[in-house]
């Protein structure tokens, strides 16, 4: 079942490769069918999931793969993986629908759809992998399609952006794979994640800290966290709309997911030593991202910087190492996927209609395309964390969790972080409303007065409504998601809690 969910897209990609290039309708139909089928498999996973047991792996399969290095084909999902897996499937499906007649130049739907499907296999696989080497393969599999997507279909500066994205991530990966190998040798000659979670705690403290450092580089670049974020604005600005959406909605989550799935549970002690620094970089990211937003003139770049800020909240939640914080982080990941994905969709559609994303040239969207204008407003409010919409449940609990970090972490430090992050939300409101004002309010700029601006198209409706509904539903019923996540988070923080208990027992 789960295997089908991972490999169906790549089988589809192979199918597409066999269809001649000029049969566009057939290509699109097959791609749609495959992504829809994958999503249906995903939904059946969702309904068949045992929610009372969301903390343990389900739909597991575990067979031999590479015996020499004792790496196994081990997949399975728990309450943390499941929502992200579904998110990845749904976003890919919606992207195929959105691209229906929006294929960016130089057109060529065949290659574009193939890349999208390969990308989906990589993303789904990463969220399901329970073996470090398998995880690494899927984690890296994502790079190539995204590189080509940006480099071939991107904006004017696409080649620079594509190679920058590739090199940054690969640099992180190189250190990450060294850490994985170190875990293999120090953690009992296995790459199996659940096994390593049991045994990883036994690694000496100094070694743990070093290994965590390598993992940190790999994941933090992907997130991206503050000093490693510079690839993100370039990649987002140059990528085609669909590329930006997938990048924002799913790819960034691979980094944070790595922290939650691998780095923290396997190396709880090192996580504790690193947590204050991760928290520090996270709050710097929040403020820096927000200030960066205020300085942007390009709409997509602004949204990209807002991603840096939002991922800062997610990382702050993770850095507290508490159940509460990590719950907030996972929720934040899903919410950010829905909201920012949606924002990039709208930015792409605006670019297509007006031929520009310059904030200073845009204006009066509400007059020319009122429905799109309202959708933009809706997403902006969701993004700034308005209660009742999904963004709130990622942001607010993350800030709150910093009040009481895991035992052994300095409360004072994290309370300062909390205060700074709270200021960050004010900035967020500032830049998002500013963007909304510039784009949607006011009067139409003279150059576009006579332009015929079409409001939301049918494919756009189909692609966007599910996201908008998701934002609303998870905003009103957050427990739908929290119930799923919470038991699995308990497993993640087990190691950290055990350390805390040991410390307090020793203190007594």
């Amino acid at each position, binding site marked *: 079942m789960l295997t089908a969910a991972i490999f169906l897209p790549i089988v589809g990609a192979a199918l597409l490769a066999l269809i001649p290039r000029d049969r566009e309708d057939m290509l699109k139909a097959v791609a749609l069918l495959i992504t829809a089928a994958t999503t249906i498999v995903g939904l059946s996973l969702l309904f068949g999931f045992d929610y009372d047991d969301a903390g343990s792996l389900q739909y597991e399969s575990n067979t031999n793969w*590479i015996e020499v290095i004792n790496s196994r084909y081990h997949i399975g999902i728990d309450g943390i993986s499941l929502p992200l897996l579904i998110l990845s499937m749904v976003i890919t499906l919606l992207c195929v629908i959105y691209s229906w007649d929006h294929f960016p130049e130089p057109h060529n739907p065949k290659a574009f759809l193939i890349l999208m499907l390969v990308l989906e296999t990589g993303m789904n696989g990463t969220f399901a992998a329970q073996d470090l080497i398998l995880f690494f393969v899927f984690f890296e599999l994502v*790079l190539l399609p995204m590189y080509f997507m940006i*480099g071939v279909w991107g904006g004017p500066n696409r*080649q620079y952006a*594509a190679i920058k994205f*590739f*090199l940054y991530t690969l640099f992180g990966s190189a250190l990450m*794979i060294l850490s994985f*190998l170190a875990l*293999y040798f120090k953690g009992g000659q296995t790459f199996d994640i659940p096994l390593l979670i049991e045994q990883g705690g036994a690694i000496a403290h100094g070694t743990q800290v070093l290994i965590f450092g390598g993992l940190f580089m790999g994941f933090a670049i992907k997130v991206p966290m503050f000093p490693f974020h510079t690839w993100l604005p370039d990649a987002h600005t140059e990528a085609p709309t669909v590329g930006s959406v997938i990048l924002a909605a799913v790819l960034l989550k691979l980094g944070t997911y790595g922290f939650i799935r691998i780095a923290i549970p396997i190396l709880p002690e090192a996580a504790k030593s690193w947590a204050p620094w991760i928290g520090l970089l996270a709050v710097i990211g929040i403020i820096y991202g927000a200030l960066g937003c205020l300085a942007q003139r390009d709409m997509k770049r602004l949204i990209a910087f807002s991603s840096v800020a939002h991922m800062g909240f997610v990382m702050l939640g993770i850095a507290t190492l508490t159940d509460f914080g990590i719950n907030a982080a996972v929720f934040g990941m899903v919410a950010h996927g829905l909201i920012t994905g949606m924002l990039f969709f709208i930015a792409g559609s605006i670019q297509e209609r007006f031929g520009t994303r310059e904030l200073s040239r845009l204006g009066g969207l509400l007059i020319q395309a009122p429905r799109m204008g309202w959708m933009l407003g809706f997403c902006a409010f969701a993004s700034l964390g308005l209660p009742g919409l999904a963004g709130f449940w990622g942001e607010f609990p993350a800030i709150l969790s910093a009040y009481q970090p895991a035992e052994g972490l300095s409360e004072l430090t994290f309370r300062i972080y909390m205060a700074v992050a709270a200021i960050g939300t004010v900035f967020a409101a500032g830049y998002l409303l500013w963007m909304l004002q510039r784009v949607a309010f006011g009067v139409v700029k003279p150059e576009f007065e006579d332009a015929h601006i079409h409001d939301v198209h049918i494919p756009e409706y189909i692609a966007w409504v599910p996201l908008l509904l998701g934002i609303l539903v998870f905003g009103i019923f957050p427990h739908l998601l929290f119930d799923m996540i919470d038991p699995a988070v308990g497993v993640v923080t087990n190691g950290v809690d055990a350390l805390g208990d040991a410390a307090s027992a020793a203190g007594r």
Partner: protein
Amino acid sequence: MPFTPPSLDYHALAPEIILTLVLAVVLVADLFLDTSRKWLLSNIAAFGLVAAMVPILSLALSETDVRSMVDGAYVVDNFALVLKALFLGTGFVVLLMSINYVEDGDYYEGEFYFLLLCSLLGMVVMSSSRDLITIFVALETLSIPAYMLAGWRKRDLKSNEASLKYYLLGVLASAIMLYGMSLIYGFTGTTVLADIGEQMSGRAAEQPMVTLAIVFIIVGFAFKVSAVPFHSWAPDTYEGAPTPITAFLSVASKTGGFVALLQLIYVGFFGRDDIWGPMFGILAALTMTLGNLTALRQTNIVRMLAYSSIAQAGYILVPFAIAGSNGGAAADSAFTASVVYLLVYAAMNLGVFAIVIAVARKTRSGEITSYGGLYEYAPGLAVLMTIFLFSLAGIPPLAGLWAKLFIFRAVIDAGTSWALLLGVVAALNSVIALFYYATIAREMWMSPVPDGDKTPIRVPAPLITALAITAGVVIVVGVYPQSFANFGDLASLVP
């Protein structure tokens, strides 16, 4: 003492015997065939290579694991069989790549295939050589035909330069190496590697001249595998030589050098890792870094691939550097890493050159810019080239990743801080390398066609076969590495 002829195991020698027969047939047949039927020669050579594979398979399946001859100077074990199969496979692919190249270029055909087979014979013998003299003879058998093949485009000055440079430096390397070998013989009184290995921990090891001898031998082979700073011949030779021969030199000839090194180090000199350990460490770090940094600046694809193959040799040197550290703790995994890397490297590098040959049929150019827009008129070639390049860069899920992974595993297995440092250097280098591999990918996918000529490339059938073989290996090993890892494990060296 009366001379007793050594007992020969003809089953074990069958691949060599078949090769010798075939190359004789090619040479003689060339005399009697008129020009219109010369194409038969390549077919004879190809069938000869396939025929030589048969005894290798039967040896692999036979009960006897190790067949040692001439007092241990010539050993057919699993390592030898794996490497022999690799050489024959490489030869087969190079042959497929050459057929149209030699025909269309109007070069001598009979001699070309004859020399190619001679060189392969040298390599096949090299895989079994566990004796200084056998190693030297094998090395010369594989090198001398290669010197001539490098100059096969005889009306082209660059090809002449390629051949001459390769010859002069190759001979210099042989001389240095031979001097080293004579010193070793002088101190140990034997040429058999296993006996040398025993003495290396004893009395002979005390001699300072032994250090010099080992250094000389390694330097000689460093020329052969084009390790920095002994690499200066490689880019010029690779650029000037006929492209199939470039592929042959960068894969088969280089592998030949590494095979000799593996036998020398693991069987002969293992006790003296205090000498070769640091030496290989420095060579590896220099080779990777300089190879990659210079490759960044190249505008000609063959020169770029030349530096890339220098850098790849650097990765293969890494396991050598750490094999002896920590009391030889990582010797097994280092050995496996070297063998696996050689096997994988052969497939991906041959694939890249097959594409270069295919594309040059149309563009008649070696400039990287001539790859602009390849995807638009030859999507199949562009996709395959992308696969090979990213495999060389070590991007999953392609074979190159596992080759690198095995090296990293050996590095961490050794666990000393020097080994880890070398590992980090290798990791950083693979990031640098990506940059120039991606440059070609970028040209193919993202640049316009330079002259606007979008007529598709007609790829001849032998070249398609070569591409199918190499791409098949790269992808299958990428997805299911266990299929290859077995060979690496199997290939434990028997002294």
